[in-house]
Each structure stands twice: as C-alpha cells, then as structure tokens.
C-alpha cells in the first residue's frame, strides 16, 4: 500500500455535519469529516507521490494539474456550502494524517468557530470591471486619427502627435473605468459587509474581452444577495466602454483572512 497523506478542504461546524456520501476529492478518494469539539475538517486521502511538498511545487506550475486540483477542491467546497457554512482552506493544504488534522482543529477551534459564525448566511460575489482600452502599440490603428500631415514632411512630429492621441484615448478609457469602479463601490454600500481586492486578471487565462481594471470580492448577507447582484450588473449603466462582470455566489473563499497565520499578510487582502 502506498503512503497516503491527508488533504484538507474546509472547516465546517460539527453540530450538523453534511452528508458526504459519494463525494470524491482531489485524487478521487472519498471525502470524510474529522471533528474536534465544535468544528470539523473535510478531508480525503491523497498519495504521497502526488502531494508531497516537492510534488506540489511541480504541480502548481502545471496548468493541467492545477486546474484538475482546483476544480476538484471547488467541487467539495460547493457540496459542503450547499448544506452548511463553510470556511474554505487554501488549495493544497496537506497534513501527514488525520491525527494532525484533529490537532490543528483543536488548537484553532475558537478561531474557526468565531469565523464560521461571522460567515453564516453570507455569500461571496465577484465583481470585475473591464475597460475597452485602446492599444498602446504605435502601429495600431487609432479610432480618431489627427489631421493628416503633409506627405513625407515632419514624419517624426506626426508620429509623436499620433502617439499623443493614442495616449489621450487610453487615459480617457482608464478614467471612465475608474468611475465605474467607484460606482460599484458605492452600490455595494449598505449591502456588502466586507470587501477583498484580488489582482486584476491578465494573461493567458483571462479569456474575455477588455482589460480587467478591478477584481473585487464582496461578502454579502444571503438575503441581500439578489439585490446586490442586480445593483452590480447595472452599476456601469451609461458609462461607455466599460463592463461589469458578476460571478457567484461563491463560498466565502476571499473572507477567511482572520484565521491566517501572521494576520498582517492576510490571505487575499490587499
């Protein structure tokens, strides 16, 4: 039998444990609960070869591994969140065995219980603001080119003028985007109880048009959830060239920082 480790997904209250029959974890093994006092952790067995520290470092650089693991982790969180208040743990939180998980729960029971209490009947919404920002490349066509220059003459000056127009168009687009972000913040007031800012999304995985200028998460009481979503979807109405994307409801992934070791660093808080 290969050596097994213990992958931990989330902490939940132990008083009304969710039914985890048939739920499988990141390596396909059944998810079970380990409890200690008022709290419990959802765990599953994972093989040492795939989840040792060295293997995890390799895995986190491998997009396929990362996606499979992240989606499996998320699936467990979603299942739990459908039944109870859930405190998600960061991806790839691995213990040697169940006894170590139980020890961790015992040491932090009060923290977990307090945070679970705060998260009860709250959901997380993602709010992303996108701007249609004109490209910065000098060779890119401009929407409103300056008056044409005398042919052949002052080519350098024409180039600089074109660049100025492009720069102006970009700055205008970013100002409108900034206003859109302000409006989402205003609309969130009175509904959301907390906000976390994630980094704007860029690069190969950001597969939607426009530039992401704000990538925020809000913690919202469940009863205000639909109103929050509706308000956000209309927050940028009337602003040209901006779009607000709303994702969720999520389990409160972005609002777990108060149990982070070294609170100054804060998980996901900026």
């Amino acid at each position, binding site marked *: 039998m290969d050596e097994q480790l213990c992958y931990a997904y989330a902490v939940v209250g132990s008083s009304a444990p969710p039914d985890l029959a048939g739920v499988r974890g990141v390596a396909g093994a059944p998810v079970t609960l380990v409890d200690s006092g008022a709290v419990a952790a959802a765990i599953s067995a994972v093989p040492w070869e795939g989840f040792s520290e060295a293997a995890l470092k390799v895995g986190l650089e491998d997009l396929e591994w990362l996606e499979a693991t992240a989606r499996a982790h998320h699936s467990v969180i979603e299942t739990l969140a459908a039944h109870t208040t859930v405190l998600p*743990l960061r991806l790839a939180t691995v213990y040697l065995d169940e006894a170590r998980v139980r020890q961790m729960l015992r040491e932090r029971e009060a923290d977990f219980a307090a945070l679970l209490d705060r998260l009860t009947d709250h959901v997380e919404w993602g709010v992303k603001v996108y701007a249609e920002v004109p490209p910065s490349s000098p060779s890119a066509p401009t929407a409103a080119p300056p008056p044409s220059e005398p042919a052949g003459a002052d080519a350098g000056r024409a180039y600089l003028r074109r660049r100025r127009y492009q720069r102006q168009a*970009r700055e205008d687009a970013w100002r409108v985007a900034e206003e859109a972000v302000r409006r989402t913040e205003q609309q969130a007031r009175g509904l959301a109880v907390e906000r976390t800012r*994630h980094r704007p999304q860029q690069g190969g995985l950001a597969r939607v048009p426009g530039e992401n200028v704000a990538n925020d998460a809000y913690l919202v009481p469940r009863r205000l959830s639909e109103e929050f979503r509706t308000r956000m979807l209309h927050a940028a109405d009337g602003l040209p060239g901006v779009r607000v994307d709303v994702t969720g409801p999520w389990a409160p992934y972005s609002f777990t920082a108060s149990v982070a070791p070294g609170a100054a660093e804060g998980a996901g808080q900026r």
Partner: protein
Amino acid sequence: MSEYDTYDDRPVSQPQVALIDLLDRLLSGGAVLTGDLVLSIADIDLVRISLRAVMVAVREELDEQWATLLPSGPALTGRDGPGDEPV
C-alpha cells in the same frame, strides 16, 4: 479538464466557473493553515511563481497604467518600469 470530469459526480446544474476566478480564490483566498508538508505553499511568492506562466504575462503593463493614472490604485505593486513612451 477531462481528468476532473471523471470524479465530478455533481449534477450538472451550473455552468463551470472560469478557472481564473477559481484560482483567484484558491490561491490568494482560502484560510492559510500551516499544513505539515507545505509550509511554502502559503507563501505568496510561491503563488506568484506558480502562476507566472499563465497569469502574469501582461501584468507589468497594466500596473504601469494604474501607476500613471491611479497612484493609489488597487493594482499598484510598486514595481518600476519604463513609461508608455515611444522608444
């Protein structure tokens, strides 16, 4: 990922979430506990390294834009870089 589908036995009621939104939450959110084996996974630098290949390509450019227009903007990382000037 197909590998995932084989052990996802949830009812297919919801559209799949975007991976990038999920990674925002699973790599910079989620409670950071000190697991037995993976102390450094909780370290933000490793998270950055992990995502270099997929997420960071255009980030420097974006940071410059925020730095120019929004000196206190949320995306500001303090990174210095060349301005948006013709070369």
